[in-house]
Structure formats: C-alpha cells, structure tokens
C-alpha cells in the first residue's frame, strides 16, 4: 500500500512534486502518465526511498519511507542509470542476491524469450536490450510494489508488444502493485487498470482507465451550440476555427445532440489537451 500525504520535493526553487496526495492500495497495474519533467521519476524515487520528501509524508505499508529505511517491499530499477558491466547471467544472479523475492526461473525464461545473450556484457548490449535487462530484473522481483520508469524506452514496436506480454504474465503470476511510467498511454491502456496523471508535480487525475476512456470525448459544431452543450461540463481545452468550435471534455458522457458531434478522444489526446489547456 502506498500513501502520499501532501508530499513535496523541491530541487532549488522548483517543486518537482508539489503537495501530492495519493493512495494506492489495490493490486493493479497503474499507468503513471506525465510529460518530461512532470515529476514521474521524482515520484518513484520518493516511493522507493531513494530521496526524501521535503514536506509531507510518504508511507509504504503504513510505515514512513525514509532514505535510510528504504522499503523492502518496493523494487525500483531505473533503466537510464548505469549498471555493473557484467554478463547478463551474472547480473541476474546479482539481482537475485539482493532481492529475497527474486524469481530466477521467471527471469531465466524471459531472458530466453527475448533472446538476450547471457554471455554478453551489459555495456555491449543495445540500448533497447539494456532496458529489457533492467525491466526483466524489476519484473522478476516478486516484491509487493514494482516501479518501472519508462520501461519501453528504446524499444521498437515488436519489443514493446513483447514487453506488454511480459508485464501481463508477470502480473498474472504474482498480482501486486506495478506502476509503469510511460508516454505511450494508448499502448498500455490494454493492461493497465488505473491512470495516475501528473503535471508540474501535481496530480491531474487518478482514475480507473475505463472511466477515463468513458469520460474522454470531444464535441464539435457551431461555437454557440458547443458552448451551450458544454455549459455544465468539465472542458479541458477549446479550439476555434472561425465560427466552428471543438471542446475537449473530461466529464460524464453526454447524450448525443443534434447540433454537435460527439467523438471519442484517445487517452493520449486527452492528456495532451489537458496539459495544453492547463498551461
């Protein structure tokens, strides 16, 4: 269980995480969505205890997270950070050595499945393969909370598909809280159950992914009609072309109307419009 209570983390004058309150208790796959610099990595660092909150509290399993008492139930390996330049097989052994809950058989199967060459040293792997190694290490951990920061960075479309299969298999084998930060929200929407969207260190929304899909749509038509139709709705962004208007809505689904056209909005578009509208 993860609880952030008005947690704030500043770097100089900039608040990377700004009075963020969040409660995650269900074993699900969560998608952490945010622009570059939105605070995703800082949030993961706070949960894992790699850094400490300047204000507020971060709790994992009802215990306050400190940088010295990093929660044992959290597994967070940053793909972009350096690793020991060992053979892939040695790196897996090492990961097993520092994690009591490491599933070596799962890791072994995944190394085979993704055709990672065990004898190759980490530095000699391609960028995508390096990311895959750290992702496998993270997912092979049966820790109760697994954090994956941009796990598909450098992956081609095939590898991304394979990653989502891997993620689903890992979750099926051992349901737990898995938080995946990514920009490719539409791709992960198939397996993630909840979305945590943040921007400038603040929570934009935290909702069930199906609810978000249901609540995301756009209305287009004559400006006055659109204005009238959206009078009581949460409009995240507006566009105007002459007298024609488009309103991007994140609210309860409205009934079809004669003068305005209702279209579904992809999660990616919703997020972009939300951030644009906010800025």
């Amino acid at each position: 269980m993860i609880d952030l209570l008005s947690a704030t983390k500043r770097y100089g004058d900039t608040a990377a995480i700004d009075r963020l309150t969040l409660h995650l208790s269900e074993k699900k796959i969560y998608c952490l969505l945010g622009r570059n610099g939105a605070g995703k990595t800082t949030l993961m660092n706070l949960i894992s205890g790699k850094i400490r909150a300047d204000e507020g509290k971060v709790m994992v399993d009802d215990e306050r997270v400190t940088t010295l008492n990093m929660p044992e139930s959290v597994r967070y390996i940053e793909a972009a950070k350096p690793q020991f330049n060992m053979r892939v097989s040695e790196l897996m052994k090492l990961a097993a050595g520092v994690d009591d809950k490491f599933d070596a058989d799962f890791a072994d199967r995944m190394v085979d499945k993704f055709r990672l060459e065990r004898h190759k040293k980490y530095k000699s792997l391609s960028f995508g393969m390096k990311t895959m190694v750290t992702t496998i290490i993270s997912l092979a951990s049966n820790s109760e909370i697994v954090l994956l920061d941009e796990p598909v960075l450098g992956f081609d479309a095939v590898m991304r598909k394979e990653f989502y299969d891997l993620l689903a298999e890992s979750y099926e084998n051992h349901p737990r809280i898995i938080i995946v930060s990514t920009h490719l929200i539409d791709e992960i929407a198939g397996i993630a159950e909840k979305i945590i969207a943040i921007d400038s260190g603040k929570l934009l929304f935290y909702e069930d992914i199906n609810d978000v899909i249901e609540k995301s749509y756009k209305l287009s038509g004559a400006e006055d009609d659109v204005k009238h139709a959206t009078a009581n709705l949460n409009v995240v962004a507006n566009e105007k072309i002459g007298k024609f208007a488009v309103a991007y809505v994140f609210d309860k689904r409205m009934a079809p109307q004669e003068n305005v056209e209702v279209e579904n909005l992809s999660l990616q578009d919703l997020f972009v419009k939300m951030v644009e509208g906010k800025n």
Partner: protein
Amino acid sequence: MKKYTTVAKINFRYTTWIAYLVAGICAAAMIVDTIIDKSMGMTGDNAISYYSMLYLICIMAPIFIASINYSRHINIGVKKKAYFYGCAINYVVFAAIISLCGVIETFLIDPYLTSDGYQIYGLVKVFGWDSNVFTAFFSQFAFLLLVESVLHTFTFIQDKWYGWLADVIVVVIISVFTPIPALRQVETAFFNLIIFSAPVAQIFTCLLLAAAVYSTNLVYLKNKIS
C-alpha cells in the same frame, strides 16, 4: 545477511581489483628482490616485510569502494542499509586477512629470512605489536579497520561541502598542531593511543573510533542520491 554479503562480494570482485593488482605487483617485486639478494649472498641489507604491501589494499580499497559503484549498487536494488553493512564486511575481511598475513609473516617467515645483517621490518615489529600472535593480530586488525573507515568516510563525503570542510580541518590540524609544541603533544598523544598504547587500550580505542567514524556514513547516506 545475504544482501550484505552480496554487496561485499561485488566489491571484492568488481570494485577493488586494482588494489589487489597494485599490492600484488609490489609484493611480487619485493619477493623477487629478496630472492636476488639471498641468491647473491648479499648481507647488510634491510627490507620491508612483504605483507606491508598488502596495506595498500586497506588504503586503496576504501577509496575505490566509496568513490565508484555506489550508484550501481543502489540501481540493482541494494538498499542503503545493505550497502552500509556490506561495505563494512569488506573492511572487516580485508583487515582480518591482511592482519593474518602480517602475523604469519612476522612469526613464521621473517625469522627464517632474517640473518646477520639482513633485517626485515614490518609494522607489527615497528609498532611493537609483536609480543604475541594475538596482540599482533588484533592490534593490527583494529588499526587497519580504523584506517579503512576513515578513508571510506572521507572519500564518501567528498561530493558535499562538509567533505571539503573535513579536508580543510585535517590539513589545519596537521599544519597548525605540528609546529606548536603544546598542540603537537595532543597529536602525539592521539597517535600513541591508537598505535603505541597497551594492547587492550589500543585495540579498544581503534575499534571504537572506527565504529564511530564509519557510523557517520549513515547520516550522509540519508541524503546521497544514486
């Protein structure tokens, strides 16, 4: 415990190999020198004991351990506490093995090599820890552990302002204390305590100081970002 030993194993294998290499080369050079001296029947020469070269490990290893691979440890999933205790295992093992080598050489090898006019000097003899094997082992062990903890701590905090401040304080102590007789006495008393005092006092002081100095790493680790 497995986590701690894993950290220690990584350090033994991947972080400190340069220290073994340097110490090994130096020790090998000294052994070759002795063989040449002995085979040519040279007398009247003095030599430094081989195990002295192993002290290089105690000096270099903490510098390497504290300055490289911390991020890699944390990024493979090592928790900060495990890193702290894992490194401590490294230092205890280094100090124990090198002390054991020192005892073996001082009591078994050096007497065999020493002859008229050919003397071998090692820290155990120079510091007067050679009264018996236990004193030789534990005095050396405690002293080496203190050296390792001080070097680890100083190296570890160099990326913070207080690291630089600590450097300045050490330089100031050495340069101010040494020329002033009254302060020099304080300095002398300190070194007497950690080196030349009665075995129990010397061992106890070194172990206590080593633990105190090494514990300060916990404060620094709190804020260290991988």
